[in-house]
């Protein structure tokens, strides 16, 4: 009984700081980024990609999400861009 109790204390301590940091980074990132900024990024990216391929601009999606752990074991917010490719230009 006592051992179970000690196990309980140990299991529930020591790692929550990193969880807090990861959650904070994500939430602050989203707070800082407004929709206009996302639209601006989208517009600029389309401009660059257009030089190389034809994409479906209506179904172009951009979002900020939490990544899985990186090499250092910490989570980072990541900018995701999903753009359906219609055609890749030959040089």
């Amino acid at each position, binding site marked *: 009984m006592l051992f179970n109790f000690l196990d309980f204390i140990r299991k529930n*301590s*020591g790692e929550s700081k990193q969880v*807090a940091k990861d959650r904070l980074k994500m939430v*602050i990132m989203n707070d800082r980024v407004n929709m206009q900024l996302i639209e601006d990024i989208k517009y600029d990216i389309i401009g660059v990609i257009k030089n190389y391929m034809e994409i479906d601009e209506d179904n172009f999606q951009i979002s900020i999400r939490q990544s899985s752990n990186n090499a250092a074991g910490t989570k980072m917010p990541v900018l995701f861009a999903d753009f359906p490719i219609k055609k890749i230009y030959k040089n």
Partner: protein
Amino acid sequence: MTEIIVVTSGKGGVGKTTTSANLGTGLAMQGKKVAMIDADIGLRNLDVIVGLENRIVYDLIDVVEGHCRLKQALIKDKRCDTLFLMPAAQTKDKDAVTPEQMLKLCNALREEEFDYVIIDCPAGIEQGFRNAIAGADRAVVVTTPEVSAVRDADRIIGMLNANGLGSPKLILNRIRPQLVKKGDMMSVEDVSEILAVDILGIVPDDENIVVCANKGEPAVINSNSPAGQAYRNIVKRIIGYEVPFMDLEKKEGFMGKIKKLFGA
């Protein structure tokens, strides 16, 4: 020259009023002439924290509406001759004042040759916040090492920047060294990394603060209080001295020792 400092946080309950009271009192203890302004119209509290609630006759609204002279609404502190409090009105709400009126009030205080004016900002990002920052020269942001408080601090820092109060300084309040050591509380480094602002001070969680609030005496006058020591350090940094941050590791409470014994 008068320096007007607004103490703000976004989130309520992180220690803005306690910080305002301790900074004001601490600066006065250093011989500075200080006015503390309670800008939390409708929910005044600074008067109770410094123990001057029974001496209020006129308040901030009376001054901005011209019902009394500036000096009549400045209550002299019990302990420091150079410390004054301008209480907030309790019967009005935040819309009773405009940023223009606050700016005028701040300019009037500059003419009274105060060294420092400390403005205790209400929680939130609405009218009360805009009023409190209107006449300030610089801002201090108070936060605790919790996700919600740090998130709100980030919002407030963004709004201060947008309103011409760039590079605010941060006070990290209610740090619990044992929890930080265990990895269960964000450290000063963690918070400053996320918010990317300079740290003005770190204040340990201290039971004395509760006792001080009960008595209406700021912790900064209590030489045995760790939080009081932290505030005295912050005050010196505001005046311009270089003071190293407190070593929080040293003070380990009784419970901390017990827990260590059990290996928790």
